[in-house]
């Protein structure tokens, strides 16, 4: 069946589980943007998630 324009759009905007995790993490830390200690925790968590993802794939 031929895909409609909306289907195609949905397909391209669908996030992978990894992207969702990162987006959720960013949202959680949004209120702490100005805090350098929280920024370090966020950075470490992002690196951890990214390395875990790389190890699993």
């Amino acid at each position, binding site marked *: 069946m031929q895909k409609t324009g909306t289907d195609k759009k949905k397909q391209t905007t669908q996030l992978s589980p990894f992207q969702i995790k990162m987006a*959720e993490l960013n949202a*959680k830390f949004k209120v702490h943007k100005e805090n350098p200690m929280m920024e370090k925790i966020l950075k470490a968590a992002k690196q*951890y998630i990214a390395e*875990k993802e790389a190890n699993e794939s």
Partner: protein
Amino acid sequence: MNREHLKKKLLKIRDLATLPVVASNVIQLTQNPTVSALQVADAISQDQALTSRVLKTANSAFYGFPRKITTINQAIIILGFTNIRNIVLSTSLNSTLNSGKKDSLFDLKAFWKHSLACGITSKLLAKKEGIKNSEEAFIWGLLHDLGKIVMNTYIHEEYNQAIALALEKDMLIIDAEQELFGFTHTAVGSLIADKWNLPPALIKVIRYHHNPAKDYNSLRISSIVHLADILCRTINLGNGGDTQVPVVCQESWKMMNLNTQILKKIFFKIEDEYEKATEFLEV
């Protein structure tokens, strides 16, 4: 919400929330260095269900002993008083404090998962800090939110409202509790822990894990659990009633001397230990 009425309820909670007698005896005995393993074994053996839980947990991957532990006495000798106290306390609370109500917004399973992750992380951080009996730190993390589960059990409807407020306004549950009740799970938890004669360090942690700098004498131990809570919330290990990450206390951060690399290693270690520990509470 009528705060006076709630305060009266809070005093009632203090009377109602009781620790099973056997658990209470074990906690007292294991805090006394002159007590023998046999005396502790006798106390645990009074409760058949507790006995089998202790043996099951002692034989779990979390403790990782190569040969099977078959008696309580053997478990005490191998694991030591602190670990046995940890198992008895967590098992007893897991079965005692449970509202069992279907309307609950408080996800009990997610709560224990978060508590377990905090226990593991506290132990890891305590080791990093060179604390001698890092096993004790496990129970600090595991029971730091004791007040939440007590409130959810004894003022269930009101606690549901606090969770709803926290989720609706994207706020920390502690702030929602303060706004609605005028007191928080840290006060309730430490009140109950004191009544139950739990170890003094644990009482301090329950009281100050959201604000370790408030009591300088317990800064080190409260900081460990404060950071453990933040790290576990960051990587979504369980849930304690809200979806937020509290801001880290500056004094705690300085004292722990953390950086991105260390934190990343800790995240991996937490994950590794957590896998092994899920048997601890059957979460």
